[in-house]
């Protein structure tokens, strides 16, 4: 009913290949963007920006990056935290070592450094796959942890190993207030989501998916495994690197290597699995689930007027959170994105299902 497509005729290839072929989807997406760019900045409080929306957007971006690798190309990676760290530290070094470096170029530089690192650690994927590859990328995590902790040059000889960023500015604009930072993140996330969506629909995305579904068959029909796998690693780590730089620069402001520890890698992997493997929208759902749900669970006892001890509340939160993850994966093993597309399908046929 809501999604009825009656009367929507496609008369050109262009229309057939559109990003959102159904008009309702198009309008919904435009409305969502309008809300995110116009309504939210006018309404939300500083707390919501700094503690909820900004981390959500940045982690959604990192999840998009990881989803390209794990969801679209089928290469399991446990080194996401490391690639984020590379992005953050590279961007930091560009910022402190080059006077007047625009923020955007630092971020892109961080992404490029992460690309190089990602491709290097992606090389083993040509020989090994599955769990073995996961362990090989885990090595990236340990190596980068060690590197950022031990090599003084990386932290600009900071005595404590902790670095911090000063002013966020590019081309004469400054990003001081939470709203400005939010809009910066939102613009980048929207841009990268669009790019990623187009990439996975194109020839290269189909190569990745062929690799994921059956690599022997893919190479038989003429897809080069080296090319497909390494481009997936490159694109994925670029996006993850930019997300890492944003996490350090915009969200934390100052950070230590622990901010990009192995926990972060796991967290992101959970995001793409819960959100939905092989889905850009799923990355957003997953990030929302992992970022927002603990906060919501934290507030629920408050709203109900229960005075729980801090420790009890925190343990309870972990328990409920874990139970919900298990529940969602049983109900919908393909993630929240699949749940959404099932709902959409049902709405198309409603009220006359067949």
């Amino acid at each position, binding site marked *: 009913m809501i999604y009825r497509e009656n009367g929507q005729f496609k008369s050109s290839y262009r229309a057939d290949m559109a990003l959102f072929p159904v008009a309702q989807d198009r309008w919904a997406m435009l409305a969502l963007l309008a809300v995110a760019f116009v309504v939210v900045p006018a309404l939300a409080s*500083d*707390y919501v920006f*700094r*503690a909820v929306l900004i*981390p959500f957007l940045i982690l959604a971006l990192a999840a998009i990056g990881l989803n390209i690798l794990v969801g679209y190309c089928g290469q399991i990676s446990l080194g996401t935290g490391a690639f984020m760290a590379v992005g953050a530290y590279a961007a930091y070094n560009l910022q*402190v070592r080059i006077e007047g470096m625009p923020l955007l170029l630092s971020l892109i530089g961080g992404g490029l450094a992460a690309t190089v690192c990602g491709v290097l650690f992606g090389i083993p994927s040509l020989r090994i796959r599955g769990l073995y590859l996961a362990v090989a990328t885990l090595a990236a995590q340990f190596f980068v942890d060690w590197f950022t*902790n*031990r090599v003084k040059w990386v932290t600009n000889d900071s*005595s*404590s*190993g*902790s670095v*911090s960023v*000063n*002013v966020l500015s590019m081309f004469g604009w400054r990003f*001081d207030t939470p709203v400005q930072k939010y809009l910066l993140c939102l613009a980048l996330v929207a841009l990268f989501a669009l790019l990623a969506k187009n990439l996975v629909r194109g020839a290269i995305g189909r190569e990745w998916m062929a690799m994921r579904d059956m690599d022997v068959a893919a190479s038989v029909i003429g897809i080069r495994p080296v090319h497909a796998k390494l481009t997936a690693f490159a694109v994925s780590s670029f996006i993850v690197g930019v997300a890492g730089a944003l996490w350090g620069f915009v*969200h*934390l*402001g*100052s*950070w*230590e*290597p*622990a*901010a990009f520890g192995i926990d972060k890698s796991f967290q992101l992997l959970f995001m793409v699995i819960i959100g939905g493997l092989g889905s850009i929208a799923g990355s957003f759902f997953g990030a929302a689930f992992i970022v927002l749900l603990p*906060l919501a669970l934290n507030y629920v006892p*408050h*709203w*109900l*007027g229960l005075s729980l*001890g*801090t*420790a009890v*509340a*925190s*343990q309870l939160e972990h328990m409920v959170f874990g139970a919900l993850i298990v529940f969602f994966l049983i109900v919908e093993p393909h993630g929240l994105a699949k749940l959404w597309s099932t709902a959409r399908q049902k709405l198309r046929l409603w009220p006359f299902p067949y």
Partner: protein
Amino acid sequence: MKLNTIVIGIAAAASTLAFAPASAQEQFVPLLVYRTGQFAPLGVPWADGKQDYLKLVNARDGGVNGVKLAYEECETAYDAAKGVECYERLKAKGTGASGFDPQSTGITFAVTDKAYADKVAIETPGYGLSQSVDGTVFQWNFPLLGTYWTAADVMLQDIAKKEKGSLKGKKIALVYHDSPYGKEPIPLLQKRAAADGFEVSLFPVTPPGVEQKSTWLQIRQQRPDYVLFWSAGVMTPAGIREAQASGYPREKIYGIWWAGSDHDVKDIGAGATGYNAITIHNSAAKDKVHDELKKFVYDKGQGTGVPTGVGTLAHTRGMMISMLQVEAIRAAQEKYGKGKTLTPEQVRWGFENLDLTADKLKALGFGEIMRPVKTSCANHMGNDWARIVQWDGGKWQIKSDWYQSDKTHIDPLVKEFAAKYAKDKNVTPRAC
């Protein structure tokens, strides 16, 4: 029927929410704690102490000059991103947060810049950025009572005393938690090593520090004369056990104040005999404040933790931290009006103008625990005092007299690092 109960429930919840906000006569104190996570053994008594003292002030004095203290805990699990969320959540509560004790060096780094923009004081007694002693650059940071540099200096003084005044030719090892927290003392140690002619070797331990076998094997090979132990949480007992296993004398190990709590050594018992730790001021002592806490809070069944936790080192330290915060509020009220609630900016003034004389401390019940502290615009640490305690297998024994750090090496270092920070961050130092 069922729907009805839900509606009633929601209405009840909403009504408590509507009437919950603090009245005008309450001063809000945010409590960042970690009761879960890898450092929970240290975090729990610390958090209990912080909250207990606020309860005591409310119960005994009816607040600060009649202004009740309101508080809310927020769990950080020692994670910087969670700490930032807590900070954002609590900074504007009530009439504004009366200063944050982030309870973690990492979170301190992450909120320092934000605090500058939000105009909220950051209180970091005994931890945080050592150079933030310099109040001309770090207007909003207060590393009260001592920093890691003063601690390292006092440890060296105590060692020098044992070595008849000279450290020349000695080998001193630093076994540290490999994080900003553990790395803080390194610049000072290197500076003093160059000046006094001893050798420093560094042994980083990967957090959380459960695995230290190789570290202590190396120590056994190199046989340093003393080991300074910058550890936290689970790393401390693990390290002491390894020292015991490798036969390194515990008398020659000096733990930093966070590695010198009862729970760190209790389970090892006799195996930890001789282990030294430094205390910030004299936090191993018992004083009137403990009796009052028992009388006004615990005997009424309103204590935060278990009664046996009162008087342990970590719990006392928590109380000291809250006491400093309360005294900052009191000092600010002297200037901005007694019995009024204060803004975070006004409380900052109180932190900067603390003057805790011996008489005042005695009246507060901290006479044995602390020595006089006076802060100023240029000096945000106040007076650092420390004592060395030693574990005798059953409890901590105070082993040394009062020490104060030697400023000849620390002051230039503070100036140098603060100047670097000011340059990196484009901060123009204030005139004091």
